[in-house]
């Protein structure tokens, strides 16, 4: 509910408004979790979206009002705030959320009368049976990231892998996604506790088994703890490959412990696309930290809105706007980008390595393209 009117962008739009005689105001809500412990992902997405709006000045060529709202990480609070955005503030678009339990709570209320653009993935159900005409996932489908690592392991001829994830739905999906592509044998499949601090027990099992490689999906603080302890246990001779575990949100704490580790991703600050390089430079200049893929998701979501609104020229015709969104006719920081019929992206996926840049900051760097124009596998289940 933080009605932070976007300073620069708004002033700019007010100044230009008379000249353009824009009758309509484009209202966009940004609904991510920006308070409490897991705030960092939401801040990336928010800052990315705000940067795009600032650069555009008038998003979609219209006077723009942006409402930044905190989902607080609580599904019931988020559901209420989503309805508030849509019903009271009558926003045309909502960018958010980050967490899948919040997604489940807000998707219904938002898509009734506005478009929901997710800067991070939603649960797989939204790609399949639960797909919605007004829901666009700008980021990726969750299962795609582990398959990047599985494919890479296949390519490298790695015959056996030790895999682990937290004991919850996304963790289960991640390991299943990995196993659906991996051709070697999975020697051990471990579920750790959500929020687990100490991984000495798991590391002892890895050391005892000496697998050819380890795949881990441990987002946030869990990833930081695991990666540091993996390094300290002297296990780095066994390659650790991850998804959502080593990225720009966790690297500030992992630092040297993560150096050289490989992860699957759909974007990295090193991606050699002109839009992306410009975005990273502007982002770091403004916010003084290295953007992660969540920031890119937020930025792209705002750019997508801009392209669709410009194309239609009005906000009244939802069908026209939807058709324009589906075309994805914008300069994505990911280069080539289009939507599947279920409104999930078709894009490249990369293998990225954690490096220390010349300026001393830590970031991921793309090593190779693993999947080209990769669509998710749930699209057939989507009827719309």
């Amino acid at each position, binding site marked *: 509910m933080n009605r932070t009117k976007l300073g620069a962008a708004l002033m700019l739009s007010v100044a230009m408004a008379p000249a353009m005689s824009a009758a309509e105001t484009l209202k966009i809500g940004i609904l991510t979790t920006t308070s409490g412990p897991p705030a960092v992902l939401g801040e990336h997405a928010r800052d990315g979206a705000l940067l795009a709006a600032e650069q555009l000045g008038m998003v979609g060529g219209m006077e723009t009002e942006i409402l930044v709202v905190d989902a607080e990480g609580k599904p019931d609070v988020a559901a209420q705030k989503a309805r508030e955005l849509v019903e009271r503030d009558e926003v045309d678009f909502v960018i958010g959320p980050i967490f899948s339990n919040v997604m489940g709570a807000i998707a219904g209320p938002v898509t009734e009368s506005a478009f929901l653009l997710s800067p991070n993935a939603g649960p797989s159900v939204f790609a399949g049976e639960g797909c919605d005409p007004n829901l666009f996932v700008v980021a990726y489908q969750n299962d795609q990231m582990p398959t990047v690592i599985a494919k890479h392991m296949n390519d490298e001829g790695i015959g056996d892998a030790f895999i682990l994830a937290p004991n919850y739905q996304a963790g289960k999906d991640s390991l299943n996604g990995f196993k659906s592509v991996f051709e070697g044998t999975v020697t051990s499949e471990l579920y750790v506790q959500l929020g687990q601090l100490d991984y000495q027990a798991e590391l002892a099992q890895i050391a005892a088994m000496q697998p050819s490689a380890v795949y881990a999906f441990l987002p946030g603080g869990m990833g930081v703890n695991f990666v540091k302890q993996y390094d*300290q246990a002297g296990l780095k001779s066994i390659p650790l490959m991850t998804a959502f575990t080593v990225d720009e949100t966790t690297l500030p704490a992992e630092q040297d412990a993560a150096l050289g580790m490989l992860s699957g991703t759909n974007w990295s600050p090193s991606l050699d696309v002109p839009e992306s390089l410009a975005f990273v430079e502007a982002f770091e200049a403004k916010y003084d930290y290295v953007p992660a893929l969540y920031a890119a998701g937020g930025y792209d979501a705002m750019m997508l809105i801009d392209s669709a609104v410009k194309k239609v020229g009005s906000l009244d015709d939802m069908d026209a706007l939807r058709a324009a969104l589906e075309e994805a006719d914008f300069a994505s920081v990911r280069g080539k980008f289009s939507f599947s019929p279920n409104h999930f992206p078709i894009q490249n996926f990369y293998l990225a390595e954690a490096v220390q840049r010349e300026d001393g900051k830590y970031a991921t760097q793309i090593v190779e393209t693993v999947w080209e124009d990769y669509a998710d596998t749930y699209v057939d289940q989507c009827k719309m």
Partner: protein
Amino acid sequence: MFNLFLLQLLNGAQFGILLFLVAAGLTLVFGIMDFINLAHGVLYMVGAYLMATFAGMTGSYWFGLALALPATLVFGLVLEFLVFRRLYDRSHLDQVLATFGLILMLSEGVKILWGSAPLNVDMPALLSGSVPLAGPLQYPVYRIAVIAAGLASAVGLWALINHTRAGMLLRAGASNRPMVAALGVDISRLFMLVFAGGAMLAGFAGAIVAPILSVDPGMGESILILTFVVIVIGGVGSIRGAFLAAILVGVVDTVGRTFGPIWLRMVMDPAAASQTGRMVAPMLVYLLMAAVLFWSPTGLFGRKGAK
């Protein structure tokens, strides 16, 4: 398999010692001053953040630690002066409400000052690396140092409370405050010292786990509940109880989640075993706590009729 079991026992004990370091200060403040301090986890977090800041500024782990400890002590004293000393005579519920408010304030304050991205603390060169155990198994030197620090704290606290004059006054003050005050002892100063000591212990715990765990705004909350589980199992106010309970929690958690599925598979079919294992593993410490309290309603070493 047997070697691995022994190693997991060791891992469990080591995790337990980590928990003990945080729990020790809480059980002291709780047991002696009868004060429920939910903000204890935040003090632990502040210790880690100060450590990260000072180690970053000085470029040295040891200087960082040397600065972070007095800093958390001062921080604890300031909090004591501003808030806590007004709460000692209040009901537990008022203490819960006020310290819950402090959690919100301090966590947000940490986020404003340091941002919400996790921070790094480098391990000192002296303690990095690992020592070989059996076969391919290795053990990080730093963790051996953490175990040593935990044991030293436990012994030190035990000696302080049971064998010094200050400890005697503390025990006396805890059981009969007006009597000790009547004997001319400045109780409020004594309590201030206990609180500051407890804060520094929490800060010390935060500072020395910073190189192994993530330093982020959620670290205080993630350990708070486990810490309470430990002191309740051990019996409030008992250092010995906290120590044993911490080891017990560490071992049950670690061994349970690694060997639990294997044992379950012996008595069930594999699919049911994995489903049950996934459901029961996160509950283990809570099951342990409920079981202990069922058999012994004041914890392992709690005073009978104690609060």
